[in-house]
């Protein structure tokens, strides 16, 4: 037999590759098969469905069509909701970052015992039900709620102020939900920085602000990236929070997609809306990563 035969050489390479990686294959196979059947196939099927006509469309046909996407982009309601979702998500990421970075810096300075207690509070917050946490804001923001009691008592207004069912109420809920997701990666990236860098900066005459902007912040960019991306993705796809704290006039895009399915039973249109949201979120995140890499030379 001719050993030089390229097909056979490929085969023998395969066998040695296989014997080196068989262990990894058997360890990964159960999970990969599970995700292939119940994650990849349903998503591919949903994307396919978004290119079909639905029962309420005047046109029909079995072929693929861009109809649902044209409908998504030309609907002024969906445009408004998409713009609102994007605006509220950016606002949420900004406020969450401004509140979470100081918590991460504080954790670094605290004594171990107090630090563990605060980390526990953040973990408990992360693990407490989203519905429970949103309900907490209903209690605070309701017409007869805590904040209005304070407003009336201080004489700021004579009648209760409508705080609930607004974009502001939703952003408050989203920020509250997002803080743990932002604090943990930033704190992690601060822990990885050698303390000697900060000390060197101080001993060379840098003040706290200079040390922060020249050393601490640039080195923590991977943590900031992780936290902001997660917060942005969670806010863009928020569903329960706008449902509980908002009104139809402040609805977010996941609600519109879910409504197409749950009340209109219009699978293709609902699928097209949610696919559009997923792709847009992905594009924004990719652009953001590129900017951090190119402009700030961050390792993200």
């Amino acid at each position: 037999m001719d050993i030089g035969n390229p097909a056979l050489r490929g085969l023998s390479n395969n066998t040695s590759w296989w014997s080196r990686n068989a262990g990894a294959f058997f360890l990964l196979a159960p999970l990969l098969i599970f995700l292939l059947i119940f994650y990849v196939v349903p998503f591919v099927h949903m994307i396919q469905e978004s290119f079909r006509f639905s029962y309420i469309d005047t046109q029909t046909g079995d072929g693929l069509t861009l109809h649902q996407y044209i409908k998504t982009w030309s609907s002024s309601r969906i445009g408004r909701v998409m713009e609102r979702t994007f605006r509220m998500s950016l606002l949420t990421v900004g406020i969450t970052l401004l509140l979470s970075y100081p918590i991460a810096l504080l954790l670094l300075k605290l004594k171990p015992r107090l630090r563990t207690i605060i980390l526990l509070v953040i973990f408990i917050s992360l693990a407490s039900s989203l519905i429970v946490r949103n309900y907490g804001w209903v209690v605070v923001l309701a017409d007869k709620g805590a904040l209005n009691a304070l407003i009336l008592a201080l004489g700021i207004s004579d009648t209760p102020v409508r705080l609930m069912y607004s974009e502001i109420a939703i952003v408050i809920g989203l920020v509250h939900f997002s803080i743990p997701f932002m604090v943990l990666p930033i704190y992690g990236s601060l822990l990885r920085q050698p303390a000697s860098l900060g000390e060197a900066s101080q001993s060379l005459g840098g003040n706290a602000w200079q040390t922060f902007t020249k050393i601490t912040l640039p080195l923590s960019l991977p943590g900031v990236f992780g936290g902001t991306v997660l917060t942005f993705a969670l806010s863009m796809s928020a569903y329960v929070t706008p449902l509980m704290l908002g009104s139809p006039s402040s609805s977010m895009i996941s609600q519109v997609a879910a409504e197409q399915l749950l009340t209109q039973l219009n699978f293709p249109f609902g699928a097209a809306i949610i696919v559009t949201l997923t792709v847009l979120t992905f594009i924004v995140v990719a652009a953001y990563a590129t900017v951090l890499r190119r402009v700030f030379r961050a390792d993200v």
Partner: protein
Amino acid sequence: MQMSNSSLPISIFERIVSLVAWLALFFLLFPVVLTAVVSLNASFFIEFPPKDFSFRWYWNIANIEAIGSATLISVSIALAAAVLCTALAIGASLAITRYQFPGKAFLTAFLLSPITMPMVAVGIALIQFFIMIGAAFTWYSLLIGHMVLVVAYPIRTLLASLTLMNPSLEEAALSLGATKFRSFWTVTLPQLKPGLISGFLFAFLISFDNYPISVFLVRGGLTTMPIEIFNYISQNFDPTPAAFSTLYVIVVTIIISLAERRYRIVSYSIQ
């Protein structure tokens, strides 16, 4: 009086940072504490300041529609999803940390991707799929939906513990004559405990709490606790959900504190 030029900006910046940090922590706790206050108020509505003290809303939790059966379904789904996902995650994270193969970074990103996928997208994709194969609105389809939702969490915590682990202990066990299985069982697994516990815990709690995926996958008698609580909140204005919320937070606090005390899960979840 003149302050020295260099100490002034230091103290101002650091004071502002500490002030904002404490305010943010206050913001995190504020609604939880107020909910507990409301839950003990006898009034039929959410009302401030509270007037009469009462435990009546805690007893009224039992009157939330289908709360018993819904809680049972939620517990069984969360438990099954957490056990199965943790088991699947052990194999996958061992493969990723112990073997070199092409496309590893892509594979890891794929395995962790359900965390950032819009939950409504997962719900929509799965219900279409289950209707197509004729398995919609069953306990098993709900379980599978929750497994897709939570499987990334034990992968993440196990990857963290495996990278932190000391491989020389395992090599020592093998060189002393232990079989591969025995060294895994007696040396590797105990070291993975914090990652296993925190991954299991997060898988359980995230499944137990889920609304956006469940809402697509349930119908009729198949219902979960978050769905019934949500329905109660949208139809009633009495403080029963406040009592429920307070109980929920107390239970979560006990579980997380015990897990931290025994297994130091907090320090293992931060890398």
